[in-house]
């Protein structure tokens, strides 16, 4: 077997995950999205990161 089927299976799994996510999450709203860049936006940084503890 070559690497091609492995990649196809992996990309298919990611696509399925995205489809499940879009079906079960709140609808996307591009008009409520943050600006392109956090720097200069005036908004507080609020994304989740592996270095963060809850409430940190």
């Amino acid at each position, binding site marked *: *077997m*070559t*690497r*091609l089927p*492995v*990649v196809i*299976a*992996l*990309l298919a799994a*990611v696509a399925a*995950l*995205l489809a*499940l*996510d*879009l079906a*079960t*999450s*709140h609808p*996307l709203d*591009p008009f*409520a*999205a*943050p*600006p*392109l*860049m*956090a*720097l*200069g*936006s*005036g*908004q*507080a*940084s*609020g*994304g*989740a*990161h*592996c*270095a*963060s*503890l*809850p*409430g*940190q």
Partner: protein
Amino acid sequence: MTDTPLEARIAPRLKGRALAVLMALVAALAVAALAGPRYGALLLIGLGFGIAMEGLRFGFTGPWRRLILFRDATGMVAQMICIGLVAVAAFPLLASNPTELSGAHAPVGYAMIGGAFVFGMCMQIVLGCGSGTLVNAGSGNIVSAVALPFFALGSFAGAYHLTWWTGLGSLPVAALSGPFGLALTLLALASVAGIALAVAEPGKRKLPGRLWAAALIVAGLAILHLVVAGQPWGVVYGLGLWVAKGAVALGADLSGSPFWAAPGNVERLEQSMLTDITSLTDIGLIAGAALAAWWRDGLTARVKGHPVHAWVAVIVAGFLLGYSSRLAFGCNIGALFSGVSTGSLHGWAWFAAAFTGSWYGIKLRPYLGLEPRR
């Protein structure tokens, strides 16, 4: 030999490559249109990471292994240069924009150090760290592709139990900042590079052009990530989130976990992955690596087989990679790369513990059936 003219053989490949690049750009534009421009940009940055790391063979696990086994310093020196370049930009950016931008700062603690040690060991067993497992899986490496779902499960479980582990004892969060902090960070990075060069064998010290290019490109993308996302590059949060979202979709109640029940994470669980920073760059890493590998050889390399007990080891190590990286407040990216480049002392503690763990992981690998015994 074939009688087909060279142009006729190259043309379909060029068309295929152009189509693949076009599809990647369309995907980023679609995310920007559906979710917002920041999220489309983050997918593009993730694709850039994946293309650069796979295309230029820049990583963390392999260089540590080559330094320990073959006294080859080149990859380790490239890592230190890359982290140093990011630090030069990140320290002043964080100091002048403390509200809009945040560093990868976390406390040093017992579980953090133990987690980093286990992570270092397991990353040598599967030959893939946080970014490396995604990049390797994206390029068709079956060991990483098998390890990846268990990595995600481990990340979810580690996050679920994180507050119990941190309760074992942690120091307050400590981070270097300002010109003195930056100078100290650069000095420490230079010292690591200097030690690596000192122990290296002659002929294994000079960086090839591809590693210089990779260090510059990855550093540029990491700085762009900080500016666009407002936080440094990370990997493992996104993987745990994918499993948590799947668990919730199947009816699981995560309110028993202080981590997943925290307001910020509840919001992440309710919103789409297309608005989650680490999810987007993780997907970009996989797709970018697939693109680079396909570009290089059309993914025609044969997949290597292993005995059953080696696959069991891969599954266990994959799970432990995810679990331990949550206890360690990040993997080689979230803790080492982003922690050190934004001044967090936990990044240095992570490096010391994970490098020690790597030494044991390298010793363990042949006994697990993943390579011949020497």
